């Protein structure tokens, strides 16, 4: 039977995908046409959502963006055979956005029913876990280390090194914690993966548990992601029923299980030690390090905390070999990164590619440049704590070290583009405001610095003692960078200082002419 694919990813739903599926189902019944509607995750081309796909002998053909009212005309034109229509896009895998990618983590996302375990297996699912079992824990960790995989949550710490430290620590219990608290604005890869291919994350976590000798794992997700949580919880239940998780997961008598926990709207809980406190049922207050979580983590036991994308990268590495992974990338940034584009770009969404492109390629070629027709003024990379890059720095190579050399960060892979209607002084003030709202309050530079930062920026924008206040703001930022316990206070200065350096005019009182710019 012909299969029609309609995404059920949160973003597609927010753009009416359920209405499209309902209308399609009604029209098929009315026309007495037999076809199956499969609900999938998203391919990551947000500007084409809802993207409807049809299985044809020549591969999957896409139509988009489809509204419910387009359904009758699509069927009239021959949707079921992939025939022409104004919304016809052609073979999905041949669209430039798709064909230019190297989809390792997102290979299946958008293609399959996320809760179809058989389909997951048919497309290579659990092969990485089987490989890990054949290799044994030590060699599995060696493979992860040799691949050069670094933490995709933002810090970029080598995953294999973390795993080895936890494996080498003796303890009665150890934990794997998956950080799915994807709070950075402009990032949505974790959500897409949990909604589109949840078994891949389960597989990655099982490999991690096997490698370090943990029998219990947690996923710490967000209350802002209700759909991802629902799908992931269902996937966990299916995995338990299939014996992938449970008392005999690794071997008889050697069990492994994953529990989903949901945060409660605190951005700081994305910081790994605050996350542990929250999992323990406490306020999300950052812990001082050392001791490191690999030695003294959840409930005082050795714990590895990895981002969703880090864990989801591991199955590919084990199946294809660490050499194949390490062969991709640039400098010390190996492998591929799911880059997430948003803001005022023509093409927004998720684009997975090896490190090494320039920002200009990402913004102008992949993202298609400005959507509003106004020039791009700046892009913020790496979430609310990441620096603003002006076009003069768009030659920067997408790689951890190249970004750090320009006081920026890759973070979790988000890039938000602002056109020239943006007021960078306002954005800098927001960075301080956000830090003040979300500060856990434990360390003074963050708790008080963020409030003082807003006040100084307000004074600058009111034209009060400009020179002195610029010096004061720079000094305050320096204190926050060096004196904060975690990345919240430590990195909030980056968007502020980058905005101040590249757009000093936006920190002056706004002139009447400028006020008139819409």
């Amino acid at each position, binding site marked *: 039977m012909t299969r029609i694919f309609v995404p059920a990813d*949160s*973003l597609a*739903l*927010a*753009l009416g995908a359920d209405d499209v599926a309902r209308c399609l189902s009604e029209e098929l019944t009315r026309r007495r046409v037999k076809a199956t509607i499969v609900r999938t995750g998203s391919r*990551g081309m*947000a*500007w084409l*959502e809802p993207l409807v796909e049809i299985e044809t002998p020549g591969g999957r053909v896409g139509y988009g963006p489809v509204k419910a009212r387009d359904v009758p005309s699509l069927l009239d034109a021959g949707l079921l055979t992939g025939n022409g229509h104004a919304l016809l896009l052609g073979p999905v895998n041949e669209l430039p956005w798709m064909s230019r990618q190297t989809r390792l983590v997102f290979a299946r996302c958008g293609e399959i029913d996320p809760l179809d375990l058989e389909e997951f297996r048919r497309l290579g699912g659990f092969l990485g876990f089987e490989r890990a079992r054949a290799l044994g824990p030590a060699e599995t960790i060696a493979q992860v280390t040799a691949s050069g995989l670094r933490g995709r949550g933002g810090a970029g710490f080598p995953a294999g090194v973390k795993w080895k430290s936890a494996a080498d620590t003796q303890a009665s219990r150890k934990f794997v914690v998956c950080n799915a608290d*994807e*709070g*950075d*604005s*402009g*990032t*949505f890869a974790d*959500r897409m993966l949990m909604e589109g291919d949840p078994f891949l994350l389960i597989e990655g976590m099982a490999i991690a548990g096997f490698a370090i000798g943990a029998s219990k794992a947690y996923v710490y997700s*967000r*209350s*802002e*992601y*209700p759909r*991802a949580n629902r799908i992931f919880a269902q996937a966990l239940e299916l995995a338990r029923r299939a014996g992938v998780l449970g008392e005999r997961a690794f071997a008889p008598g050697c069990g492994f299980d994953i*529990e989903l*926990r*949901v*945060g*409660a*709207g*605190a*951005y700081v809980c994305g910081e790994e030690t605050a996350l542990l406190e*929250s*999992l*323990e*049922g*406490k*306020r*999300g207050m950052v812990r001082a390090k050392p001791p490191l979580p690999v030695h003294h983590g959840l*409930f005082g036991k050795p714990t590895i905390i990895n981002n969703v994308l880090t864990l989801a990268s591991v199955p590919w590495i084990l199946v294809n070999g660490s050499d194949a992974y390490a062969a991709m990338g640039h400098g010390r940034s190996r492998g591929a990164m799911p880059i*997430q*584009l*948003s*803001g*005022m770009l023509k093409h*927004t*969404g*998720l684009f997975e590619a090896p490190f090494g492109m320039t920002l200009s390629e990402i913004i102008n070629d992949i993202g298609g440049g400005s959507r509003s027709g106004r020039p791009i003024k700046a892009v913020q990379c790496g979430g*609310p704590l990441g620096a603003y890059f002006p076009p003069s720095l768009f030659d920067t190579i997408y790689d951890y070290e190249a970004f750090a050399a320009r006081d920026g960060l890759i973070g979790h892979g*988000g890039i*938000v*583009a*602002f*056109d020239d209607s*943006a007021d960078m002084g306002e*954005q800098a003030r*927001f960075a301080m405001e*956000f830090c003040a*709202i*979300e500060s*856990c309050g434990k360390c003074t530079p963050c708790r008080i610095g963020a409030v003082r930062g807003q006040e100084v920026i307000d004074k600058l924008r009111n034209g009060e003692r400009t020179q002195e206040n610029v010096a004061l703001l720079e000094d305050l930022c320096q204190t926050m960078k060096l004196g904060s316990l975690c990345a919240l206070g430590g990195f909030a200065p980056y968007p502020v200082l980058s905005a101040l350096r590249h757009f000093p005019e936006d920190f002056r009182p706004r002139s009447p002419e400028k006020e008139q710019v819409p």
Partner: protein
Amino acid sequence: MTRTWNPELASREIEALTHLEGALLPVLHRLQEVFGYIPAEAVTLAASALNLSRAEVHGVVSFYHDFRTEAPARLVVRLCQAEACQAAGARAAAAALMGRLKTEFMKVAPDGSVVVEPVYCLGLCAAAPAALIGDRLLAALDGASLCEAVEAAL
């Protein structure tokens, strides 16, 4: 639909989760799911069931943005105000809605019908600005479509 406060039901809901390690967040989420908010009496019940002090539970309730200590408005509109939405016009959309409802963020309408809360990222950044109106996600909004969607939900 949320239930009216009922200590027996609350105790049963708490009891069903006490086997979890570090159970407080799941307990608070469950209480808020059932009753719509976490009244002071619930704090006492949770504290005693989990062998914590009331101060510890209160500290957790007050730390997290999600937990409410009073019954919410009938309709909660959560508007994303983070950078990706800002870049695509979230401030203007929010201003349009505030003008239409004659309200401001976090201020419950006098008749208890609606409250607009800021949220920092719904993960729909690639189709910004985004909002959660009740339990319905909406993306690629502007002032007009946001006002229309909120009024339709009222």
